[in-house]
């Protein structure tokens, strides 16, 4: 085999986050090579560097043994690298052919020759089995077909290396099969494929080699035929456990939060949560494990009321929540710490005190004689800052000036200060340092012993295993199984997360 592409010691930092920390990658001509890793492992960043969308802080890229500078996607396309992004880069009001023509070189200046493009699109459709009507408007196409358009878009530009970022995440099983046929055709035809995924089954099915990334570093590159799903799962998830807690046993209280056969859609209108049922009891932490993008966000949003429920029932202490607004849910005792703390949870330009007060700003004692009761607001903030050890000179500092960990403390403190009966907390420690992580976990333990029902949604499996009393695994919007941490081997959990094994409850 000959080496087509090499990436050497690629480093890319975003502020303090080491997205890629010295990654090496080699791709052989004619192979299907998977990049495997959990969310945040650095897969997409690495591929965006290859495609010229990001510039690496360090490292070099060699194609056919020659060093290249990929300053923008145009250069990448010239070098025969084409990328299909996870979020499609198509212009919805344009037709397929128009989308493909954007910035295409060698076109007549004064006339857009769509007929020519359409013919060539049909040709490519035929050749690779990518069925597409070149005259159709993209906004009217299904997601699966849109993906074909994306693939044709880069094939049209002569891509020899096809990079696909989580291509199956948005596809039905049937469409996945079709995609795999396309990819195999492409390889037979002399192409090379880089396939970003976290789904083990698919990787075993289609790839020749696998490179596993974790936390911005490369763990290993292995031949698919020499490995197993179990081994890959272990490499992806990691063996070392960073956190160790003394499990606090609390007596279980009553059923607090209850979901019955809940269905809902994501922002794109695709089904995201498919018939999920579970109960969270007072005094327990129920963990939802799963790789990102399997309906966790929608699950949290549907419980908090931001997402609309399609069918099923959500109830809190027996009261049906379906028809209540997010605010009304807050009022009857639901706390929600969203994963997007800067976008939904906090008003970052506002002060800490104001962020702590804003949910109740129109109520006593935050308000006095119609005016803000600054004395109370500041006092309240001062107490919370002390209690939660928020590192700040005063409550008047804007939240944007705080570190991620301290922002999360403020958000968590606000939600807890409302004395919720049930707390939904989503990706609470993403991007936080160990100290802040530990503090947040201990806070959760404390609330648990107070009898609060806590639903912890996290794609960090270590966190789930260490913190939860009971764990459900979610995959493509359905619950794959339930287990008690420590009682089953980690490989089995990895298989459930990858959708391979379904364990009946």
């Amino acid at each position: 085999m000959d080496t087509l592409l090499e990436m050497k010691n690629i480093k890319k930092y975003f502020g303090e986050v080491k997205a890629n920390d010295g990654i090496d990658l080699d791709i052989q001509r004619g192979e299907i090579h998977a990049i495997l890793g959990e969310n945040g492992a650095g897969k997409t960043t690495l591929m965006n560097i290859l495609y010229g969308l990001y510039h690496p802080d360090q490292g070099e890229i060699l194609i056919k043994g020659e060093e290249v500078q990929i300053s923008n996607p145009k250069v990448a396309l010239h070098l025969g690298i084409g990328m299909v992004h996870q979020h499609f880069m198509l212009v919805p009001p344009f037709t397929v052919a128009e989308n493909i023509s954007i910035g295409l070189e060698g076109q007549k200046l004064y006339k857009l020759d769509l007929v020519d493009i359409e013919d060539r699109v049909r040709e490519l459709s035929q050749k690779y089995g990518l069925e597409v009507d070149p005259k159709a408007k993209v906004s009217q196409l299904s997601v699966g077909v849109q993906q074909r358009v994306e693939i044709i878009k880069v094939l049209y530009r002569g891509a020899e290396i096809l990079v696909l970022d989580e291509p199956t995440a948005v596809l039905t099983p049937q469409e996945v099969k079709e995609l795999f046929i396309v990819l195999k055709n492409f390889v037979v035809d002399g192409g090379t494929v880089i396939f970003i995924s976290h789904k083990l089954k698919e990787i075993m099915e289609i790839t020749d080699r696998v490179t596993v990334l974790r936390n911005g570093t490369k763990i290993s590159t292995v031949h698919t035929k020499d490995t197993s799903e179990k081994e890959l799962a272990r490499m992806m998830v990691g063996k070392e456990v960073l956190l160790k807690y003394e499990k606090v046993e609390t007596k279980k209280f009553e059923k607090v939060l209850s979901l019955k056969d809940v269905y809902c859609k994501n922002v794109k209108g695709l089904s995201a949560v498919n018939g999920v049922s579970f109960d969270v009891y007072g005094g327990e932490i129920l963990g939802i494990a799963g790789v990102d993008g399997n309906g966790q966000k929608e699950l949290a949003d549907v419980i908090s009321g931001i997402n609309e429920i399609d069918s099923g029932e959500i109830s809190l202490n027996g009261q049906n929540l379906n028809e209540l607004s997010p605010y009304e849910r807050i009022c009857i005792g639901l706390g929600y710490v969203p994963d997007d703390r800067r976008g939904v949870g906090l008003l970052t330009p506002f002060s800490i005190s104001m962020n702590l007060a804003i949910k109740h700003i129109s109520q006593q004692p935050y308000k006095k004689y119609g005016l803000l009761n600054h004395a109370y607001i500041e006092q309240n903030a001062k107490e919370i800052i002390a209690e939660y050890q928020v590192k700040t000179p005063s409550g008047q500092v804007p939240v944007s000036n705080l570190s991620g960990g301290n922002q999360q403390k403020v958000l968590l403190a606000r939600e807890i200060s409302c004395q919720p009966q049930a707390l939904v907390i989503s990706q609470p420690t993403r991007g936080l340092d160990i100290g802040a992580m530990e503090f947040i976990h201990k806070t959760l333990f404390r609330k648990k012993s107070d009898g609060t029902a806590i639903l912890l949604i996290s794609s960090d499996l270590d966190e789930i295993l260490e913190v939860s009393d009971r764990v459900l695994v979610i995959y493509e919007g359905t619950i794959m199984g339930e287990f008690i941490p420590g009682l089953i081997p980690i490989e089995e959990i990895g298989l459930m997360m990858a959708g391979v094994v379904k364990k009946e409850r």
Partner: protein
Amino acid sequence: MEIPSEVRKLAIAAVPPIVAIVLAFLLGSILIFAVGVSPIVAYRSMLDGAFGNIKSFTEVLVKMYPLLLAGLGISIAFTAGAISVGAEGQILMGGLATAFVGTYLGFLPAPLLIPISIMAGFLAGAVWGIIPGYLFAKKGLSVVINTIMLNYIAHYLVNFFINGPFKEPGGYYPQSPRISENAYWPSIIPGTRLHIGIFVALVAVICVYILMKHTPLGVKISSVGVNQKASRYMGIKVEKMIIIALAFSGGLAGIAGAGEIAGIHHRVLSGFSSNYGWDAIAVALLGKLHPFGIVLSALFWAALRVGANNMQRVTQIPVSLVVTIQALTIFFVLISEMWQHKGKLASVTHTFLKRKSIS
């Protein structure tokens, strides 16, 4: 330890406007130099013209009055994230309403009529603010476009009245009848045009300050401007807040118009606002959307307007130089504001400036 951090905060906030003003004046001096005048002489005459004697200073305050009120109004709209450029039309509507009241309710005694005239100005301006607010809330229509349209509609509405039903009986010019003397806003210093409006404006500053910084409503309005999605989640009614903000915004501009009619012209003339509504946008930005900042920027802006006249008398440099300097000031405010906070959302002004501008 509290005070130094407060002082530091203020100092940091003041950096962009001050740098901007200095840069704009430096560029202005190049223009002055190019026409063969010493910039020092020119700027001196400007300073003399604005602050040289009591009379000129009262003129500054007279011009400061509408700028301050309309600027305050705009700051509320901008803080809520609604990009209203409708102050000009709101001033006109406020003035028109005040003239109606001053004419048709002229029999009322002054202590009653003057508050009513303020109220009339406020209400008329508020209506002109609620319309685009409602269209935004219910139909998602651009506040920018609709406020521009409403500026023109107000302009022609005023012209319609002073050419038609509200024309001075038997008069030749297109203007309304003189309002009743009971409706005149009393002058503060006899022999000058300075009227009690300046006190009205200062009261408005305090009210806006209290509203925006010390009431739940003000917090909710700014919250909507900062992040609509988060506000909605926290139970704040986003659309309602935007309508309220635009109503206050229009109302304050309406009071500006009321003062122009009841304090200065005592009748409606075509185009009596002389672009105060547009300048107020700049005043609000230069004052960093803060009521006290706007007091300073309105004073500065008005002093430039008045000082420019003296500069023209003394040095023959046209008044319009000052408009150029004003524009350059805001130009540099925008650049320094974006540069100072590059990459993070730290100030209300900055948050506003980063907004998508169609709404």
